């Protein structure tokens, strides 16, 4: 078994006393098979935007499922805030509840549920579809609704599991801008699982590349926002990330 501990570049900022998310020595295997997550360490600071990249089968989804509480922690330690929210690749709205009812699903908000749903739908630009049935929404609209459902919970930690992967390129760009704007306003810790290197570089403070259940690269992205593809530093980071994903640029 590959047990050589790789020198993982750790987060430089040591002054942070409390992390939003701490993962220590997390190991996960299915039915005694090879480890999908192999003694994984990861920290996310409050308000930090982390992009998680990796090839298919690298353990991205397993990590996210563990962090969201869907999978149990058998080996290792995970601490995360109480208030978390997840946005999946599919909107996962209940088709039999109107959009605004989906937003406040499971919320014990009392009578102002409708008002809160409207406010957050307005924020993601979907105020006009509050009364629609989810199956009548377009892909982009449904993902906006899913974002609104996550935001209405005011999470300290937001997980995005390839939320734009199923959208067309133009809609995806709009959604990336929307997420960037929402994050600057809400300042929650974010973990974005993505296949898209450009998406990671546009949005995240840090890009983490997962490979065979371990963190292979932990790359800070010290670029000013808003970010531009044309920036030479952007280009450089892009090739570094692609390299660590096993894609050679030239």
């Amino acid at each position, binding site marked *: 078994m590959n047990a050589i501990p790789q020198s993982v570049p750790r987060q430089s900022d040591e002054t942070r006393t409390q992390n939003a998310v701490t993962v220590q020595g997390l190991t996960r295997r299915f039915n005694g098979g090879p480890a999908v997550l192999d003694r994984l360490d990861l920290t996310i600071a409050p308000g930090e935007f982390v992009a998680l990249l990796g090839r298919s089968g690298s353990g991205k989804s397993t990590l996210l499922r563990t962090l969201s509480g869907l999978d149990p922690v058998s080996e290792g330690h995970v601490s995360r805030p109480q208030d978390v929210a997840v946005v999946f690749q*599919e909107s996962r709205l209940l088709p039999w509840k109107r959009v605004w009812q989906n937003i406040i*699903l499971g919320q014990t908000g009392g009578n102002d549920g409708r008002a809160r749903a409207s406010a957050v739908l307005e924020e993601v630009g979907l105020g006009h579809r509050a009364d629609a049935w989810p199956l009548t929404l377009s892909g982009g609209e449904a993902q906006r609704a899913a974002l609104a459902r996550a935001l209405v919970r005011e999470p300290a930690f937001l997980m995005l599991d390839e939320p734009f992967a199923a959208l067309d390129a133009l809609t995806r760009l709009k959604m990336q801008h929307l997420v960037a704007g929402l994050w600057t306003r809400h300042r929650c810790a974010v973990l974005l699982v993505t296949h898209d290197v450009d998406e990671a570089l546009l949005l995240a403070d840090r890009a983490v590349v997962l490979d065979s259940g371990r963190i292979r690269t932990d790359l800070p992205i010290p670029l000013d926002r808003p970010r531009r593809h044309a920036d030479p530093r952007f280009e450089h980071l892009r090739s570094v990330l692609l390299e660590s994903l096993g894609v050679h640029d030239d």
Partner: protein
Amino acid sequence: MSETILRTAIRTVRPAPLSRPRLTPLLSGWRGLSRYLSPLLLVVLWQAACSAGLLSTRLVASPAQIIVTAWSLTRDGTLPVNLGVSLLRAASGLAIALTAGISLALISGLSRIGEDIVDAPLQIMRTLPVLALVPLFILWFGIGETPKILLVALGSTFPIYLNLHKGIRSIDPKLLEMARTLGLSHRQTIRDVILPGALPDLLTGVRFAVGISWLMLVVAEQVNADSGIGHMMMDAEDFLRTDIILVGLFVYGLLGLTSDQLVRTLEHVFLAWRPARREKGQPT
């Protein structure tokens, strides 16, 4: 030549989406009419054959005779009374079936232990032809209302149970995961995710159940009864009254159609969230 054809083809194809709202009522109106044209023709032929003496009224009464008989049966109260009795039987049986089917499906759909206890016996029992139980039911419950209502109930419990059970078990696991990440309690998940998600299957089951309940009723009333549409028909057999038998047949047919339409309406009301499907249902 081919160019003209092509052009006209384009011309007729292109504006189709625009002109559709205007075109459809006209088309469907004609189609609706044309659908009834051939049955109507058959009735006319039937009447003609009877009037000309080609068909003996001992075998088949003429349409006109059936209408007259239906009217007189309604006037003297025979038809309304028997219809009431039959309706009551079907409704009671269906009510029992709904209660039993839904309860059993909830037990076996929502818990593993419940499934182990409930599902296996029901899956075995559903393979039995319920109608074969008629002699046993008469031995057990005599010839009163009980065996008839129970026969209807037993027959229509299975489609309700099977469909609702399937509906509960086939809820999209992604939605259940979502409910967990949103922190929904077990009770909330059942109320907001599982039950509404299984409703389409339940209504399908109810439609089957309604159809089966009429079938059960026909047999129950013809084997051993002193009232009901089936009894009225069996009585008529003794007097070679094919007209009364045919009236009973039409009443059964109408009952089936009406109850099916009722369930369709329920589907329309409760499943409004589904994207518009075949809005114009076939008239069946």
